[in-house]
């Protein structure tokens, strides 16, 4: 299975709006709780109450400061698997446990055949694969494949857990292969970009850049009509005169 499908039916993925993300970590813990009981259950934790707590997480949020046009900004930056179109994380896998679904392009690990050699995680430039020491297999974002088609849950909930959770609405899910999908349109409108495109894996997930605030129209001293008031007068007197006149209309 390790060879990549020449083409996938859909290109399902996430679109993350960096202009809105406040770094609240909801997508992170929601992902953890869904997936620790889902397709790749469990997502184990080591030393959970001790000195060096760590565990398997499929989604993480960083925060960075950067400069743009001389202005310093802070950005919160969620990261999970980008479900690349041509990822070596799949082709390096010796067992075929790693595969890209032909139907929708989701990159998955088969937890029943993975031998835990970790090679795929070495091949991922995004650090998106997570070895579960306890379970001995590789874990990764499943794009919540066990939610998005799940007929036992209401249709409106058939979206990834992280998208369902995100309080600000910074995350969207859809078919990025379909130019008419809502996600593709927002990517087109906002000049969405992929991460480390130079690398050549053709990531599917897109990011919408922080917006530049548009300058706003202002009229500095709109009540210019008080020019007719005799000068010079103090600001207080001008205000009172204006208030009197305004109220006598």
């Amino acid at each position, binding site marked *: *299975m390790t*060879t990549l499908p020449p083409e996938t039916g859909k290109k399902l993925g996430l679109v993350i*709006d960096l*202009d*809105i*993300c*406040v770094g*609240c*970590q*909801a997508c*992170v*813990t*929601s992902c953890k*709780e869904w997936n620790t*009981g*889902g*397709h790749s*259950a469990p*997502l*184990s*934790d080591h030393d*959970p*109450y*001790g000195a060096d*707590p760590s*565990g398997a997480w499929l989604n993480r949020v960083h*925060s960075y*400061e950067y400069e743009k046009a001389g202005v310093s900004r*802070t950005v*919160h930056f969620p990261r999970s698997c980008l479900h690349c179109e041509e990822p070596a994380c799949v082709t390096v896998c010796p067992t075929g446990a790693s*595969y890209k*679904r032909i139907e929708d392009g989701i990159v998955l690990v088969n937890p*029943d055949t993975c031998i835990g050699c970790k090679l795929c995680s070495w091949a991922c430039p995004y650090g998106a694969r997570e070895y579960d020491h306890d*379970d001995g297999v590789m874990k990764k974002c499943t794009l919540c494949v*066990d939610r998005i*088609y*799940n007929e*036992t849950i209401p249709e*409106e909930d058939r979206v990834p857990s992280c998208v*369902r*959770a995100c*309080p*600000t*609405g910074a995350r969207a899910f859809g078919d990025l292969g379909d130019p008419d999908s809502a996600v593709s349109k927002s990517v087109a409108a906002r000049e969405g970009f992929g991460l480390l495109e130079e690398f050549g894996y053709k990531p599917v997930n897109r990011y919408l850049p922080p*917006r530049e605030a*548009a300058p*706003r*129209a*202002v*009229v500095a001293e*709109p*009540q210019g009509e*008080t020019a007719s008031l005799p000068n010079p007068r103090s600001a*207080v007197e*001008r205000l009172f005169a204006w*208030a*009197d006149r*305004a*109220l*006598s209309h």
Partner: protein
Amino acid sequence: MSAEPVVNLNQPVADRVAKTTCYMCACRCGIDVHITDGKVRYIDGNRDHPVNRGVICGKGSAGIMQHYSPARLRAPMRRVGPRGSGEFEEISWDEALALATDWLGEVRRSDPRRLAFFTGRDQSQSLTGFWAMQYGTPNFAAHGGFCSVNMAAGGLYTFGGAFWEFGDPDWDLTKYFMLFGVAEDHASNPIKIGIGKLKSRGAKVVSINPVRTGYNAVADEWVGIRPGTDGLFVGALIHELFRTRQVDLDYLIRYTNAPWLVIEAPGAADDGLFARDEAGAPLVWDKASGGLASGLGPDVQPVLTGRRTLADGRMARPVFELMAERYLDPTYSPEAVAEGTGVPAEQIRRLAAEIAHVAFREEIVLDQPWTDWTGRRHEKMIGRPVSMHAMRGISAHSNGFQTCRMIHILQILLGSIDCPGGFRYKPPYPRQAPPWLLPHGASRDVRPDEPLGGPHLGFPLGPQHLLLNEDDSPARIDKGFSWDAPMSAHGLMHMVINNAATKDPYGIDVLFMYMANMAWNSSMNVGGTIEALTRKDENGDYVIPKIIYSDSYYSETVPYADLILPDTTYLERWDCISLLDRPISEADMAADSIRWPVVEPDRDVRGFQEVLIDLGGRLGLPAFTNADGSPKYPGGYPDYIVNHQRKPGIGPLAGWRGADGTKTGNGAPNPQQLDRYIENGSFFAHHLKPEQAYFKHANRDYLTWAVEMGFRTVPLPTIFQLYSEPVQAFRLAAEGHGTRQPPETHRARIARYFDPLPFWYPPFEGSLVDEALYPLHAITQRPMHMYHSWGSQNAWLRQITAANRLYIHHDLGAQTGVTDDDWVWLASHLGRVKCQVRLMEGVNPDTVWTWNAIGKRRGAWNLSDDAPEMKEGFLLNHLISELLPKGGGGYRYSNSDPITGQAAWFDLRVNIAPADGAGATEPMFEPLGHAQLPPAPGKLAYGSQFRKAKT
């Protein structure tokens, strides 16, 4: 080539879904708890819920790990070793309740004042307050005094609402949003949903905050203000609005006391009070009649300017004039405030012009007729789409009350309170400004074995309403409603332990606390608080003789209590989030909600409210006992929720009242009420009609409905108090008028800070310490994914944050010669803390900050002694003194706002110096004993059981 493996795409999530209310924080979102084999499989947001509309935050999603925390208490415990040793013996509930009844009963029979009952982050204050009233002690409050009472009092005294949970920006319509001093707030999900909406719509978000993270990072404009100077900044915005004559005069006349005449008679006992007619109505100058008239009349046409002569020949001026003069004073010009605030004058001018532009040139007109309180019909609703929100960045300063009032004045000048696109009240708000509710608990009201005459907390209108003893000393242990903090609408929980230990104003016998980690992150001066909890008298007895505490987890406070009443987790108990307390209403609906036990406790624990009602019966408190002495609510808390009536027809829950469940708000108890709530997702929401949705302070249809619901007593409007007469009443006393005057130690302070028109003054700590020695401001922020101390026991959340750093500006790093992860000493006038730094750009250069409540004490929370929380995690609380340094008068005031008693956490002034070597944080306290806890697991594979279930 093998085929793709088969993935079960249709695995059912769980056996069942139970809809209840989250309590991973105070936001009270609706959650769907998915349960398999009695174990929680998944928690997500309830799509129908008014608060979160389906989304869930980082904490809420980690609820599973909170619920299964290894730090959960397991059974009632009685202390057997010394306080702090953590040596307890487990006892039965019968023993625990008998012991508590014994301790509490004795105090009630002798002197009820000797019980201090403080309930921390309590969501059931309508019950706990009522219980305390029934008990008869004056000493009750929850956490509001150390949290954000400045926002509550500032708002309620000004316009009968407040930012603090009592209102929201009009997220759907606002075009310009200003966020003052907020990192996360109680409205955790609603703010996130709202900011998402604004950003998607292209509305402008301006953040005023010394730190640029979280919400403030996505703001379109960041104003990195110097802490404690917002009053200057807002004053300058007001200055600009007045200077450019961009204020909503009609709105001022219609809804505010701007035209009311203020007596100008320096030295007189009524100087600065409103001129009133014989009926007590404030006077205005009426243009129509060309004379004085009642400002409350529906048909007056008041003017805003002109010094007028009163009937007695004295002079009076409208509030508008006084206000304009105050803010047009050059001290509030953008140029004058630029240095103090660190905000350039031209930026302030531009921001003022922008808000004015949006308010007056981008107004919103809704085609929605409505009728005002006078009966006048208005064809349209006109909105000024500028909205604001503020929280602890404003309130946690000693000038917070006045600064908060100033922000409200800014809103009101723009005409943006409860209009489309502005700030919107949530029912039961607006109340009257201030609410018609006086505090109770003066010494004459306190009698053995008798309930108090009314609720503890309220809104004094002057010195006559203070809670004092015959000798004018404070009647309350926290000195609330005394000259120390006359308008302390939420009490001063942060002073209780210290005052009790120093017996100032008096000693107590029992300290009874619930849900507050007072021996750690919620106290100022942690070391001093621990010392107070363990202080002994000359006989070797504890000065605070008995401490009863209810917690769910092994927090830092548990080992200091003598009797532990272990609470359940939030998924295991009944709860009631009532309109009588702090409800979950949204702007266009009145709503309340419940929690119910969706999973069974596996420990010998009981819901605290359950226990309180039980104790009420055992103590024979009138409202909790039948005439024959039997308990009134044998069915416990659910029984109380359904059957208790505060007034006939009004009970804890508003939904499905009346015997058949058809009544809303007012109706007989309905035995099926809780079932209806559970069926409906554990909440009830009554939606307002479109004509009631705005201008609620003056909207006849809304006001009449509010009276029916019992929110208000009369359908009269709320008139915005730009000028606050109660504040002036206190000042007059300080100026020597009236029979009740402040003691000499307090006189100058009251005279100065009780200004009826808000003004800016420097925060106290900065003016009392040598600013050259402590040049920096130090503040904290809440991490969005952690709730105070609760989060660190959570196996998932602590993987995100298990240690904190001190964030400092690059320039400060360069000056100090430190860089990322270097250890430094951070020192204040109280002490010093050793911690590690992280450099950043997005912080006010004179400010350092850290995440709140990450540091933990060894022995607590069932974490190992070498956990990062213990070794690297640190609190600023060690540096914050609960008492100010001695000022001129030699009296040590509490480190609080002089008006409300709000704890001034963010006044802290510090300096920084490199520390030698590495090691661990300091101060480092002795580890707490914790023999009662089971060992915490070395690894977790939560969820593997669900995978097995699958195959």
